[in-house]
């Protein structure tokens, strides 16, 4: 394709995008049309010479999630050309799927607004502040202290702040207030502050949600969204706009406000497209191109075309908005980055081989990362880590995956592999879930027995979903001083006496991952786990065992006339059931004896909850999922978010942000946005 052809194609694409959604018809179109071609240069690919490029941009960003989109806008604001490549069909990454609980602080604008008891500029917020002014009275020094506090130990006896990278944390703390303002300037609206997210410190309240107001029209500039787009019009539908149904935000804003990652990701995407950031979707970043393998600048990337295709229609999925999209379908291309590459393609939670570095049992591919249907097979695939290691990058926080309580956990949503979302039919990727699952809550675990891949119980069921609290404001019971009484850097926070008192971890998840009679060399996979129950349980609970909650087609829900039939069905039809549940009949018979005796000599369940026989046909099985959620081990970066090599030096032209980066034990968006803000700032300033 010649440059002329490419330009023509881009223009056609721009027109198509403008026609697709009303949003861009008014206001944005003029500025975008001017920006769409500005700065970007598509280079002819006919030449086979080594240093020819298929595309050239000033800044190339791998990944269009919270760090990538923030970096893209920030760099574009500085006047440079920006290309974002993303393996998925749409932008937003996990941010789009998130709860939008965005913990920053250090005296940021929202903390100050709530301290003053003010509303937002548009007057949407009609409820008073949730937190007292003293709980919001924050500064950068206190934030930095909090996120590097050596003394904090959580209820799992882990230290979430002690091992954080200090230079990076200092930069993060200093950039929290400007990042908050930056997000607000790009159409993000924040609710009242309410608490702090895990890893965001114990001293002050620092986290609001992002919101939009329900209205007649979805209009990012006006801050409104239709009930249909928000997914609140029908409890069993989500929309292409919002993969997760938005939640009521009345408590934090006022009537008709809704919140979640849609109110963060879509405004940022809108702004990025409006400002002329270019996007190449269905395009998996594969490798970095450096002048020499371990020397010189990073000058570009290679990226492969991996389209996400609807399994039934065979059609390629298309992003909700298309303005700025480059429809490039060649199998592999080289993209030059004149100033810098920013790695923002996520962590390794979806890559069993990489995550097994941290916990060998999690090499089990039966257990996915959260939001796997939305993200697709390339989501959280460790692409940034793999590519950067090849050119000499260093790593950080390798132990920190094990020091956050929700890095991996057992979901209370049963009957679906994609067990950490409430996506419903209506979103284009629901087909990859097949079922929404049944959220039985913690209490629901008393209704069944949980068995491993050979049909044996392995733990007290009611303790399986329990998770120790994250150590964050106002304390969650994991620090002796709660709320404003908390004292940072105090030895009493980690005295042996206090740790004994606060320790609260059940290890049920580890029992679920244990080897069993069906675990075979060389990987000794633990295999899937199952909730087994009978018709009486359905009548006790009212669980709705119907589509879209369960599907009899996807292998995560089974119903049978006998226990033996149930075992046979699971063995025949579940994709990760490698061995028969040979002990299931005996397990149920034994369990029914325990129920009659009122005692469970194996796991002492009678101490926690009542027990029920599994006797009345039909019988049911729902999959129980272990979900690997976050990535905390990753690339080592300095305070400018430059990737550091094994000699301790920055790799010229290479930046990173979000879950690709290690050494910051903070769950959630606050890490990614600020790191993207810093990376975008400095990448644009490269010579």
């Amino acid at each position, binding site marked *: 394709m010649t440059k002329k052809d490419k330009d023509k194609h881009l223009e056609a694409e721009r027109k198509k995008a403008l026609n697709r959604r009303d949003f861009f018809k008014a206001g944005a179109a003029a500025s975008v049309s001017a920006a769409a071609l500005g700065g970007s240069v598509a280079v002819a690919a006919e030449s086979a010479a080594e240093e020819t490029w298929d595309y050239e941009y000033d800044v190339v960003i791998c990944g269009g999630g919270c760090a990538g989109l923030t970096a893209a806008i920030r760099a574009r604001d500085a006047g440079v050309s920006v290309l974002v490549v993303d393996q998925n069909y749409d932008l937003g990454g996990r941010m789009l799927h998130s709860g*939008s609980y965005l913990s920053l602080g250090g005296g940021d604008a929202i903390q100050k607004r709530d301290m003053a008891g003010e509303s937002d500029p548009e007057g949407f917020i009609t409820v008073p502040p949730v937190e007292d002014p003293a709980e919001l009275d924050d500064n950068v020094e206190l934030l930095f202290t909090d996120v590097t506090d050596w003394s904090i130990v959580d209820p799992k006896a882990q230290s979430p702040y002690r091992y954080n990278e200090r230079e990076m944390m200092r930069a993060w703390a200093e950039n929290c207030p400007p990042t908050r303002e930056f997000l607000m300037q790009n159409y993000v609206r924040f609710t009242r502050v309410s608490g702090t997210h895990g890893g965001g410190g114990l001293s002050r309240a620092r986290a609001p949600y992002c919101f939009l107001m329900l209205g007649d029209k979805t209009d990012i500039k006006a801050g409104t969204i239709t009930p249909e787009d928000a997914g609140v019009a029908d409890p069993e539908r989500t929309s292409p706009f919002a993969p997760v149904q938005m939640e009521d935000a009345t408590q934090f804003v006022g009537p008709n406000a809704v919140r979640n990652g849609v109110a963060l990701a879509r405004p940022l995407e809108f702004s990025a497209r409006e400002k002329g950031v270019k996007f190449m979707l269905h395009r998996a970043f594969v490798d970095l191109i450096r002048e020499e393998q371990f020397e010189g600048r990073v000058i570009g990337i290679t990226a492969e075309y991996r389209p996400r295709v609807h399994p039934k229609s065979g059609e390629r999925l298309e992003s909700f908005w298309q303005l700025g999209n480059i429809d490039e379908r060649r199998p592999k291309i080289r993209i030059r980055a004149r100033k810098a590459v920013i790695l923002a393609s996520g962590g390794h939670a979806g890559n069993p081989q990489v995550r097994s570095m941290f916990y060998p049992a999690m090499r089990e591919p039966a257990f996915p990362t959260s939001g796997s249907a939305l993200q697709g097979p390339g989501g959280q695939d460790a692409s940034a880590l793999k590519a950067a290691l090849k050119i000499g990058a260093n790593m950080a926080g390798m132990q920190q995956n094990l020091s956050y309580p929700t890095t991996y956990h057992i979901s209370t949503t049963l009957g679906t592999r994609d067990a*950490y979302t409430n996506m419903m039919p209506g979103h284009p990727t629901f087909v990859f879930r097949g079922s929404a699952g049944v959220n039985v809550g*913690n209490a629901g675990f008393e209704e069944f027995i949980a068995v491993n891949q050979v049909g044996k119980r392995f733990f007290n069921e009611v303790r399986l979903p329990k*998770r120790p609290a994250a150590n964050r404001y106002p304390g969650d019971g994991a620090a002796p001083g709660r709320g404003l009484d908390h004292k940072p850097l105090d030895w009493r926070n980690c005295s042996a006496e206090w740790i004994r008192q606060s320790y609260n971890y059940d290890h049920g998840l580890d029992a679920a991952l244990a080897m069993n009679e069906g675990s075979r060399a060389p990987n000794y996979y633990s295999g899937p786990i199952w909730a087994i129950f009978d018709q009486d349980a359905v009548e006790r609970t009212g669980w709705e065992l119907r589509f879209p909650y369960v599907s009899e087609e996807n292998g995560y829900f089974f119903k049978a006339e006998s226990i*033996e039939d149930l075992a046979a069905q699971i*063995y025949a039809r579940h994709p990760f059931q490698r061995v028969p549940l040979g002990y299931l009949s005996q397990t149920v018979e034994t369990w029914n004896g325990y129920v009659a*005796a009122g005692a469970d000599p194996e796991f002492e369940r009678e101490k926690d909850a009542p027990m029920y026989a599994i006797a009345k*046909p039909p019988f049911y099985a729902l999959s129980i999922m272990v979900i690997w959620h976050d990535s905390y081990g990753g690339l080592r970066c300095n305070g400018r978010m430059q990737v550091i090599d094994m000699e301790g030096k920055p790799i010229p032209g290479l930046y990173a942000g979000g879950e690709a980066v290690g050494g910051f034990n903070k769950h*959630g968006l606050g890490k990614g946005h600020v790191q993207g803000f810093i990376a975008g700032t400095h990448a644009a300033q490269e010579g």
Partner: protein
Amino acid sequence: METETQEVEVGPRLVVTASPETVEPQSELILTARLETPEPMDVKGEVVFYDANGEEAGRASLSDRLDPEPLTARLERMAPAEPGSQTWTARLESDDCECEEAEFTVTIAPHPISVTVWDIPPAIEQGITFPMTIGLKCPCGCEAKGWSFRLLDGEEQEIRAGKVGEEPWPGTIALFYTCLDLDAPAVEGHHEWTIVALPPEEAEIPHGERKLKVHLNVTRAPEVTLRIEAVDAVTNAPVPKAKVVVHPYRGWTNEHGVAEVRLPKGAYTVFVSRSPYFAFKSSGEITEDMTLQAVMHEDREYSAAEMWA
């Protein structure tokens, strides 16, 4: 007398074993093919397994040689449903080596019988008549209509012999059942009885006998009433439809959050549970009519927003 010895050239050959030796119908069957060669050879290829009908049953690649182990190919698959011994074959597909097709035996056990027993009350008062429903089914698809069973007590004395009926349990296709009324044991306490499902003599396909233990809690006549009032810890509102378990007695709270359980005097643990609350638990001696307030604390789930920011 001298015996003439003759050297016979032995070429590569496949030796296949099936594990377990007798496999349950439709359970896991592991076929291991071993390529025996006169000298160590590096052979790449696949072993193709064929069932008794000559249909391909699966294929597996030869593993890399790990001296001194022989080359092997291992296939895990579901065993067939038909009982008896069958002759299967395996063939090597390789550019490096030729050998004859190997025969081996797969032996399938008789069909099992699924026994399901339900409707037994969790607490059975001494001397009363109580219900029990027994269902029989062949997991391999044979029709269990009219199949026989025996009911034995803890001393293995027959209490009842019977047959399941002609109709499947409502909502099922092949679970044939019968409803029994039985006399409760006279002795208070836990009783373990056994259902023995008998192999049907008239069935063309052999079936194995199956035993299932059932458990009875035989109690004295109730003497006192325990009244439970379930309330929300924060709002003090009644909690209806909560499950009440005072082992072995069970009940539900009504729309006023109240349940009444009649029971003999004694020591009990009371559980009251209902989503989304933590299970309420209280233990103690009940010697007279009493009221227990179950204060229910919400087991608040983390929302997606809280977990997923």
